[in-house]
């Protein structure tokens, strides 16, 4: 069976790959948006922390014999604590300054973290096996669906929707949204805002690490895996705008799918298509698809 002159099987598998990449875009841009909302900092180190999430998973297996499922919880926690340390020791000194300084600080952290991993592990990727329960594939008749890829899309969507639910529908989320609007007033109501800021950063970073764990078996675990991704995620954030959580999820997935299709029809542009879309969106609707112009 063919569609637009491309075998359906190839088209669908690229679509799935696009959804997998889109899931990573969605989780990472969600984390960026949550952090930006409360801290007013664009966390450049998000990509490096995603890489760390994958590396901690790899280390867990190779040094301590901890399997994938343990690391799925442990790795975001380890990286989350690392994030909290960054927030407590460095970031919190910059809140009163121009947000550009936060961007530059996290850029410096990115360089250091990446450089350190590179000096110990080199640039070549480390393979990570797919966990036994998820190896193999479903045969759906019209396509072969690798179980692990299906799991990545499912797990990311679940985490994104859970985050959306917590922020939009629970009391904790209400505090968070109030803190985004007016931190001074929220503090006056007796809520420990600095604590909330710290935990928010830790949570956003843990989301990045979670994406890293999911990515470990599909991409090679390498020190450079984060920095190329984060720039695409910035473009995703510019396209979607950071005002809406569901907007971030939809934009991330959608762009992943578009990228997948581009890889089928015009592979030369697959690395640049997201940036081209960003340029078009900026020309037509500068505030982004889901953004509000302040």
């Amino acid at each position: 069976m063919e569609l637009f002159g491309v075998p359906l099987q190839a088209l669908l598998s690229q679509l799935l790959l696009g959804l997998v990449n889109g899931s990573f875009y969605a989780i990472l841009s969600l984390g960026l948006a949550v952090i930006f909302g409360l801290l007013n900092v664009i966390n450049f180190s998000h990509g490096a922390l995603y890489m760390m999430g994958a590396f901690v998973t790899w280390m867990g297996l190779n040094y301590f014999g901890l399997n994938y499922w343990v690391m799925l919880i442990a790795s975001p926690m380890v990286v989350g604590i690392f994030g909290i340390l960054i927030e407590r020791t460095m970031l919190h000194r910059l809140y009163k300054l121009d947000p550009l300084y936060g961007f530059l600080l996290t850029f410096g952290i990115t360089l250091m973290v990446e450089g350190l991993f590179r000096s110990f592990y080199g640039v070549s990727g480390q393979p990570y096996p797919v966990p036994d329960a998820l190896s193999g594939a479903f045969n759906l008749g019209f396509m072969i669906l690798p179980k692990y890829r299906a799991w990545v899309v499912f797990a990311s969507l679940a985490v994104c929707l859970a985050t959306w639910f917590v922020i939009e529908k629970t009391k904790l989320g209400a505090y968070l949204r109030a803190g985004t609007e007016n931190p001074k007033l929220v503090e006056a109501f007796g809520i420990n805002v600095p604590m909330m800021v710290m935990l928010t950063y830790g949570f956003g970073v843990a989301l990045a690490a979670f994406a890293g764990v999911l990515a470990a078996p599909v991409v090679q675990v390498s020190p450079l895996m984060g920095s190329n991704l984060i720039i695409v995620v910035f473009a995703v954030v510019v396209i979607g705008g950071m005002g809406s959580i569901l907007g971030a999820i939809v934009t991330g997935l959608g762009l992943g799918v578009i990228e997948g299709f581009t890889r089928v029809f015009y592979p030369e542009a697959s690395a640049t298509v997201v940036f081209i879309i960003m340029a078009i969106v900026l020309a037509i609707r500068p505030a982004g698809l889901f953004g509000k112009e302040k």
Partner: protein
Amino acid sequence: MNRNIVNKKTGYLIALIVALLAPFVAYPVFLMKALCFALFACAFNLLIGFTGLLSFGHAAFLGSAGYVAGYALRSWGLPFEAGVLLGTAAGAAIGWIIGMLAIRRQGIYFAMITLALAQMLYFVCLQAPFTGGEDGLQGVPRGKLLGVLDLSSDLTMYYTVLAIFIGGFALIVRAVHSPFGQVLKAVRENEPRAVSLGYDTDKYKLLAFVLSAALSALAGATKTVVLGFETLTDVHWTMSGMVILMTLVGGLGTLVGPIVGAFIIVSLENKLGDLGNWLADVTTIEWFRTLGESVTIVTGFIFIVCVLAFRRGIVGEMQALFKRIQGNAGALKEAGS
């Protein structure tokens, strides 16, 4: 006030004499490379320091100009001046396109957009046939200046680069002190206010962006001619980060800061291996010997230190110190009378 101007003039004069004598003391190719980066950093500073726009994509202008100039000189056999001018024009044109898109958003978004568009250009350079991909563009000839002076002599080349640098720097100084520069400062301090005063701030921002891109491109084209090759390093985002670091170390928004910063960072890159060996000898931690290959760790560390504790940069701190001393002296005089 008057004495200040005289001081400044003697300062520039001393700097000029040092620059003229420098190639007899230091390695000319190193000096030329540092001068190119100094011009690059000064051009970048025109945006961040005097207009308040953080561009995270300046490597795009440096690198694309390098490729265009290198290709024109090597494959078309254009003379030196035409090649450099063509590279500069190409960088300015790319700056105009990126600038048009980026100024549609403010603040932190501006940084993300410039970064993303520059990354797009990186992928274009990676895939385009004329850049040589991963190998880069090799064997760019230096040619002759005005068809007469042979630039393959390092000394002739050095004075040419110095002249280009002084020309670029003078243009920046002139722009900053002109009415145009004052409007840019107004945009930096309070953009809505500048708009309400009747200035079309978008036009001024775009003009500043294109000027900065063109001067970065001039630096990039010159650098390619000096070194004789151009690689993907110059269009990569780490290069955009490097120019931010140079400006930050030297002092954001000071005229000479970026020059100081560029010389420090370029020397550091050159000497990092020796520094690492020395540290390994002193501390007996063998890992330091690999420091030469881990430039990013050190640059990342400097970034963090600068942002946390040293935001005014070297020249900015010195100016602040100078003002404090002068202030104290003034206060003493007043108390005395």
